């Protein structure tokens, strides 16, 4: 699925070698500024050059929301390619029944009040904006999900709920996370990145059972 061989990106990524197969659920852990975002960007860029370009739901750290549009339209953007331009334009002027139904359902699953969908996203709070961003990625309805700290502004309970939503709906997932617990509980492979280098890359089970591996995890944040 994703493959990097001794990859180098100026001084941000250093000698990265990894391969991620379809069906794996991978969490990237590491201190801020360590290279998680750069690595995700590289994976996303690389895949968009290949044929699988369109099978990825991409959820960047900045969300990429369009401020003046409503939450509804920001989520709907995930399926622009499934309709012709006139349909999309009509939906921009007046939300059409079919996508409206689907997006209201999705927003309830995300814990968003459906009234919030009709406000412009500039008026929403950080957590609400983040969920709209995830909403768009989920609405893409793809097999692969790439996300950069998608639940960072949510409280632990809500974060867990939404992580579960992402996990249930995608077969292959690569997420950057800053919460260790979330990573250990939900993912079957964890990659630790620090100063642009991979510090460890191992199955979650080993990180829990193997003392040496657990030490590596601790050293990540020293």
């Amino acid at each position, binding site marked *: 699925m994703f493959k990097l061989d001794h990859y180098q990106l100026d001084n941000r990524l250093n000698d990265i070698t990894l391969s991620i197969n379809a069906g794996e659920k991978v969490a990237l852990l590491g201190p801020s500024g360590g290279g998680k975002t750069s690595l995700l960007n590289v994976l996303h860029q690389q895949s968009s050059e290949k044929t699988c370009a*369109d099978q990825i739901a991409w*959820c960047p750290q*900045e969300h990429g929301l369009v401020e003046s549009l409503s939450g509804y339209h920001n989520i*709907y953007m995930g399926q622009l390619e499934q*309709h012709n331009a006139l349909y*999309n*334009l009509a939906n*921009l002027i007046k939300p059409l029944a079919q996508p409206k139904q689907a997006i209201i359902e999705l927003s309830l699953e995300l814990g968003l009040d459906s009234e919030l969908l009709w406000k412009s996203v500039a008026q929403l709070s950080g957590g609400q904006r983040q969920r709209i961003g995830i909403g768009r990625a989920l609405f893409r309805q793809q097999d692969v999900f790439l996300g950069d700290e998608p639940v960072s502004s949510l409280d632990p309970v809500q974060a867990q709920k939404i992580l579960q939503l992402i996990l249930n709906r995608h077969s292959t997932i690569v997420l950057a996370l800053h919460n260790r617990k979330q990573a250990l509980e939900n993912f079957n492979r964890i990659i630790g990145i620090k100063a642009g280098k991979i510090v460890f890359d191992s199955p979650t089970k080993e990180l829990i059972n193997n003392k040496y591996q657990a030490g590596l995890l601790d050293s990540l944040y020293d």
Partner: protein
Amino acid sequence: MINSLVNMKSSRNTSLAFLIVALLCIPFADLVVYQVEPWDELARMGQGLLQPSLPEFSILADSLMITVAFALIAVSGAALIGLLLALVFHFRAVRIFCASIRAVHELFWGLIFMQIYGLSATTGVLAILVPFSGIFAKMFAEIIEQQSSVPHSTLSSRSDRFSRYFYSWLPQAWPQMVSYTRYRFECALRSSTILGFIGLPTLGFYLETAFKQGQYDEAAGLLFSFFLLIASIRWWLHLPWLGRKWIPSYVLVPLYLVLAILALPASPQVYGSSLGQFFTDDIWPRAVLNGGIVASFQWYQHQLLDVALPALWDTLLLSQLALVLTAILVLVFYPWASKAFFPKPLSFMRGFSRTVLLVLRSVPEMIFAFVFLLILGPSGIPAVLALALHNAGLISYLLMRHSEQLNYRSDHATGLNHYFYDVTPRVYPHFLSLLLYRWEVIIRESAILGILGITTLGFYIDSAFEDIRFDRALFLIVIAALLNIAVDSFSRRVRSRV
């Protein structure tokens, strides 16, 4: 540090180069005062200014309405066309097309459309709409380019261009586009006024008549109405004074548009050429139509060497002088209006200077030039003065605002020391880039001032139209457009250096 030194050096060199070129221009330019006694005329004008009078109410109302109607319809149409053109602006052909329609001045378009549609509303609207479409397309495309591409990155690459444009790029760019369109509307009001100088029934027509007949009181009255019109835009475009019940502009603008269409003057019967005949026959020289290659070549050679080049030379001389005079005036004007020098909340000096700058930038060059021609006689001086004053008004205003946005130490120097050591060095790069942006406009305008009788390109174009020599007129318009495009690309290169 080294970087800023290099920058300082290159902006100094650029400034010096322009200054030297301007000094070299002086001996060649026609800078004679023909009027022996300018003071009489000036005194009568001053009297008119102090005792303005208004023409008959119906004339004033009519001309104001038509001026606004032309501008409003043209800007709405042009913004819409620009919006669509911006969507396909990545095609080279579209970019070239837009560059060439905006390189021809509104008045030249007016003269062209007049041959087909006569002195009608169609001519008035199209004269503004066509070049403005090209300007809108370019500006909108640039604004869109500046927007974040992150929203775009989360979309499917299979989504169509049109949908992406309307969901991702357009909503992001919208606020900037609206404010640019509002600014353009103000420009369109000026253009619409100026179209009166070629006979369309806008404010400029009555202004020119009043000036020509020496009725300076009436001219002053019309000029004041024009100021009021420009200054009041914000009051009637938003209606904020209606309080909470204000009407949003997406209701107001269509409403005004309908009113504008109703207000358009009835078009007289035209006995000119048809559109087809104009483009296939009228604008081509006989020699080309007859298929004589040698004769065609000779015709073009004659037009180029004997008409176009001298006109081009004069246009360049005047615009170069105007550019440098503008620069000098800006450096003199801007501190008086800036809070950086007059920080008191109610500074008389600042208020006064700002009013002067407002007047300078809202009076079109054409009107300044017209007045100066009356006072000083037909030479290059009125043109240079008019161009420099109008542009200095505009650039000083922008530079003043820039100087107010900078942070100063609480113990900064005052007066001349503050000016020479602190503020001016810091605003200088911005000043140069504004000036270089304006260069293209100054060239366009100095070509057009020829319509008043100064021997720039516009003079020869206007006379060619008067002699019904459409072939020559069109050839010269193309030359003027090429000059614009060349200067635009040259100034872009200089801008990237400083």
